[in-house]
């Protein structure tokens, strides 16, 4: 039976999550140099267009229709055939099946937009479009099926991922690392200063991400109930804890910067994502706080290694998501969610093992498939603009526009 309160909540949550994709565009767009701000925003917008269509045509059926051996969905729901206004109790008994489809669409859309941070300021727009279409189909859709699809092998194994720590963040983060390695550094990387072009725009992005994340995690309860509320509360708390810790870390180093706390907040949001339906508020403080430490030092390491994974999708999403998934194995509690499981601290080390497997599997799969896709796209279309186009900036060279 369709419940109007649950439907209202999942609908508005969906709208919030869809807002996150352009928000990533603001967040990333403000962090690149002035000559490529529009290009960065454009890539996130294009992800929204492209995957909106890919998902209703093919993505949803690959991820959620009846499984083929636990690895991938079938083609039964191609073009949304049979996905209608009645509920599908396999996934959510009190909202229309179309509503579940759309909520999931928002996740499928936002995930590839996170990878944009890896190749800003140097990718050819056409290559970006091809890559993103392929990535959604060959990385996101299978992993979503493994973890969330009925019959998916990680779901069957008992892996817990409330709102996408593995499906969204581990995939995006490890893929970002892979494609950054293929496409190479920006000209002048490590030598020229790469001043962020518009910090207020970064803040607008971060704030809309925080706002949207209430739908991301809260909506993942698929109902307007106590579990949704729990997810909402721990989301806010973890973000606050992570931003605070990041502020302290950068203060110890020198000065607490706006860029820093905005990043910290996002890292906290990432880390609580898989855990948000299984842990309580005090655990959220720990999860968020440690996430900040982990991602902070991962960025330090990344810079030391002189890898131009330009906006640190790997350090923030890859590591944040991995930590969150593992933390779920540590802090999960059946008091919070009877349908979940107890974690290590409540005497169940098994869950932690399962979580590690889930992280490892999605990380390796994402890295390898993305690496192959990136090399392929490079061969066929060419990933990178000419050095002259790169120096002039992607706004002019790819879109004939300036801010």
């Amino acid at each position, binding site marked *: 039976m369709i419940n109007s309160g649950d439907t209202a909540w999942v609908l508005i949550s969906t709208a919030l999550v869809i807002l996150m994709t352009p928000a990533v565009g603001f967040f990333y767009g403000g962090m690149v140099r002035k000559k490529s701000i529009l290009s960065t925003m454009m890539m996130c917008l294009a992800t929204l267009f492209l995957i909106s269509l890919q998902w209703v045509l093919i993505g949803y059926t690959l991820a959620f229709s009846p499984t083929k051996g636990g690895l991938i969905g079938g083609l039964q729901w191609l073009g949304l055939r049979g996905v209608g206004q009645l509920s599908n109790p396999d996934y959510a008994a009190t909202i229309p099946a179309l509503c579940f489809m759309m909520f999931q669409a928002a996740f499928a859309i936002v995930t590839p937009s996170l990878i944009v941070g890896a190749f800003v300021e140097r990718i050819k727009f056409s290559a970006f479009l091809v890559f993103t279409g392929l990535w959604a189909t060959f990385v996101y859709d299978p992993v979503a099926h493994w973890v969330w699809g009925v019959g998916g092998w990680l779901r069957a194994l008992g892996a817990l991922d409330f709102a996408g720590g593995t499906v969204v963040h581990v995939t995006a983060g490890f893929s970002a690392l892979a494609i950054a390695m293929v496409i190479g550094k920006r000209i002048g990387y490590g030598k020229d*200063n*790469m001043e962020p072009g518009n910090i207020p725009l970064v803040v607008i992005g971060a704030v809309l991400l925080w706002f949207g994340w209430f739908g991301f995690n809260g909506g993942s309860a698929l109902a307007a109930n106590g579990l949704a509320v729990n997810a909402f509360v721990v989301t806010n708390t973890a973000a606050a804890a992570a931003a605070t810790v990041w502020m302290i870390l950068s203060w110890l180093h*020198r*000065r607490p910067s706006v860029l820093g706390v905005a990043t910290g907040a996002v890292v906290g949001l990432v880390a609580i994502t898989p855990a948000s339906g299984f842990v309580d508020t005090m655990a959220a403080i720990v999860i968020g706080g440690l996430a900040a430490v982990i991602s902070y030092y991962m960025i330090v390491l990344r*810079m030391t290694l002189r890898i131009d994974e330009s906006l640190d999708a790997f350090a923030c999403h890859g590591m944040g998501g991995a930590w969150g998934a593992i933390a779920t194995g540590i802090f999960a509690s059946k008091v919070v969610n009877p349908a979940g499981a107890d974690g290590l601290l409540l005497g169940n080390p098994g869950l932690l093992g399962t979580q590690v497997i889930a992280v490892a599997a999605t990380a390796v799969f994402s890295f390898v498939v993305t690496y192959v896709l990136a090399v392929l796209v490079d061969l066929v279309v060419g990933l990178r603009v000419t050095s002259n186009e790169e120096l002039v900036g992607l706004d002019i060279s790819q879109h004939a526009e300036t801010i």
Partner: protein
Amino acid sequence: MKKIEAIIRSEKLEELREALDKRGYIGMTVTEVKGRGKQKGVMLEWRVGEYRVEFLPKIKLEMVVEEKQLNEVVGVIEEVCSTGKIGDGKIFISNIEEVIRLRTRERGITAL
């Protein structure tokens, strides 16, 4: 006539404008520029760690004055803008051959 081009700290502009105002020097043009000198740049915070910005925001103030006013104006600028710390800026003086006031099409010193 002489052109005084002073590169100064942004935060000194208001004070300088007032000091000049008081002595009757009203006409001037200012530009936001970025400069580099002894004070080679500044370290700004990135998300993690910092990066060097090679150019610092400065104000370029241009005033065209009669030769006999030159010393007074330069004096005022020195007075207000010297803090003794690196980054105070420079004054460049050059020659201007003709001035025209567009409103009245006057030429020469009366056009200043």
